[in-house]
């Protein structure tokens, strides 16, 4: 029964990718300023045309202060920012971002998509997110609504929720931790969100995420982010309970649980009173009960009968 349940879960998890239509082409639905399409094997780019189909492996290239929007048949929207080069892969639902920025919105049930750049990738399923990349390894992901799974070039994976971002600095400049970004400010100032004539289909969900985050900021909310090595290392060793018998200073401990004393050492702590009775002249210090150490004497070997 357990095996069947596991298989069913695996099958269900695979369904979207098995039955999702490939994202290998989209129709140009908006053009702002300079947008070109580079067909494979041709050196000269051709200007993109409204309602034209962009197919893999064609590359789309935008100029300065330029943007374009592509809409797939399953209503997956790809918005491309300025100075960007990107292309669809010839199979699956993968977008290659060579440089620049894109916004990807994949409706629920469409099968999501993966944006790749260098060694990094961002996989989504029914989400709206923004990805930026540079040719020398810079990578940034911001989730506007829903969630996404990010794989960074060092192999680290992170699940990002709405309002969260992670980035890799160009030229191997290091990875950020998962950061919370002010979604309201970002959306208000984003041309990829606001700079097109049509609203994104997910605008309601984005607005809900903005309101949710604003409420959290107002209320003040603790986020369970687990604990990092740094945080743990910085936790005060002076205030934590130490492990084992070191939970108390070892010399204080010895006043309660004395090391054993030999009978001779015990005798030294006792003196006879004027009547000849032994009395305590002192003690071991602390608790007056102390284990007696058995003194081992080296015994002389007894001669065996019949032997010298």
């Amino acid at each position, binding site marked *: 029964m357990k095996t069947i349940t596991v298989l069913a879960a695996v099958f269900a998890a695979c369904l979207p990718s098995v039955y999702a239509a490939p994202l290998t082409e989209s129709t140009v639905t908006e053009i702002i300023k300079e947008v070109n399409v580079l067909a494979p094997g041709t050196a000269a780019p051709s200007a993109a045309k409204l309602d034209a189909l962009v197919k893999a492996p064609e590359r789309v290239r935008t100029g300065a202060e330029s943007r374009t929007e592509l809409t797939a048949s399953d209503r997956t929207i790809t918005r491309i920012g300025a100075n960007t080069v990107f292309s669809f892969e010839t199979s699956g639902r993968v977008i290659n971002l060579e440089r620049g920025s894109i916004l990807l919105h994949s409706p629920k049930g469409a099968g999501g998509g993966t944006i790749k750049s260098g060694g990094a990738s961002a996989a989504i399923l029914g989400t709206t997110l923004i990805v930026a990349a540079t040719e020398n390894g810079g990578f940034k992901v911001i989730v506007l609504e829903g969630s996404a799974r990010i794989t960074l070039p060092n192999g680290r994976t992170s699940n990002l929720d709405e309002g969260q971002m992670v980035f890799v600095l160009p030229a191997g400049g290091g990875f950020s931790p998962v950061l919370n970004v002010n979604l309201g400010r970002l959306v208000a100032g984003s041309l990829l969100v606001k700079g097109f004539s049509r609203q994104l289909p997910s605008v309601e969900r984005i607005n809900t995420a903005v309101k949710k985050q604003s409420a959290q900021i107002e209320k003040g909310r603790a986020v369970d982010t687990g604990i990092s090595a740094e945080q743990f290392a910085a936790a005060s060793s002076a205030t934590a309970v130490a492990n084992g018998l070191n939970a108390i200073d070892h010399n*204080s401990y010895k006043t309660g649980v004395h090391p054993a004393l030999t009978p001779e050492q015990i005798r030294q702590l006792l003196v006879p009173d004027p009547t000849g009775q032994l009395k305590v002249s002192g003690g071991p210090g602390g608790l007056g009960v102390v284990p007696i150490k058995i003194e081992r004497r080296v015994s002389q070997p007894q001669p065996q009968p019949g032997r010298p």
Partner: protein
Amino acid sequence: MRKLKLILPGACLVLTICTVAAQTPGAIRQVESDQQRRQLERAAREIQPGETAPELYPGEVTDIGPQSIIKYKPRKSYVEAMVDGQYFYTDNMFLNEEDKQEADVFVGTAQIALAPTAYDLGPGKLAPRIGYRHQWYMFGLLNDDTVQVFDFETLSVREVELRKFDFNAQTLFTDGRWTMGNWGVDLGFEYTRLMESDDYDQFYQEYVPRWGVQRVFPLYESGALSLGYAGDYRFADTDMPPPQFNEDFNSRTDHSLNIAFTQSLCKHAVVQPYYRFKYTRFTEGDERDDYLHSFGVAVHCFFTQQVGLRAFAGYDMLETSNPNIPDYRRLDAGGGLNLTFRF
């Protein structure tokens, strides 16, 4: 002690020779590159709330939008209540040099403190506390061993179970930790008294001002090294002092150096190997210097912000200058559960 004095510098020398031998020019370049990468990585990690995430390329913000980093502030709390229980095996309950006595031990701790959330003080943050801690030490819960003892009150020799040595510790404490970046400075004061478990008769008390400083070195994303120094002075008051000694004969000062490496295993677990060297000088009574080496490893799991589970193993080696005090070796291994609530 002499052996250790020889072994430690020897080990350091061998390590130094190995390190120097490995430093080919390529390796040096690699180290420099690693250092640059770490500096950049640290810069990436140290983005503070209110700051803006760096642009990957000029003009990125125009399309994406401003990326102002925010941080959800946790609710302020004022009280910290903690319950901790650890159950472990020790191979040397009496800290003897020979004839070690094995035992299973339970150490229970209940603590409550007025501990307001850290507040800004200068360029750092100060976390003050004042509170009370009670600890129970219980021996031989699953062990029926008996030991022969001499009772100085009744002047009699008898056999007792290990439970006879159960005791309680009551501690009143106040302390503060000031942190700035990866630095932390501790200052505190404690009053502790030890009592018999049966009738709560006090047999030892100490007044302890203590101080310390710690520095954390983030090595990479999931690993950090911490170095720390802790010092204290214990004004001790011990019942039944030996003849010709006063009740303050246990007064002493401790100075310890700690080094610990912390490695995240996952979001909710860390492993921490550590080494600590502790020097103790007794200032009253007999002249005496103790050198305690402790090393071990602990794995800590955090299920929630309130519940933590740990497993640990530690080994202690004490060398002392006083021939009447036994040197000892001791192994402890076990586990613990910690519940901490802040409100």
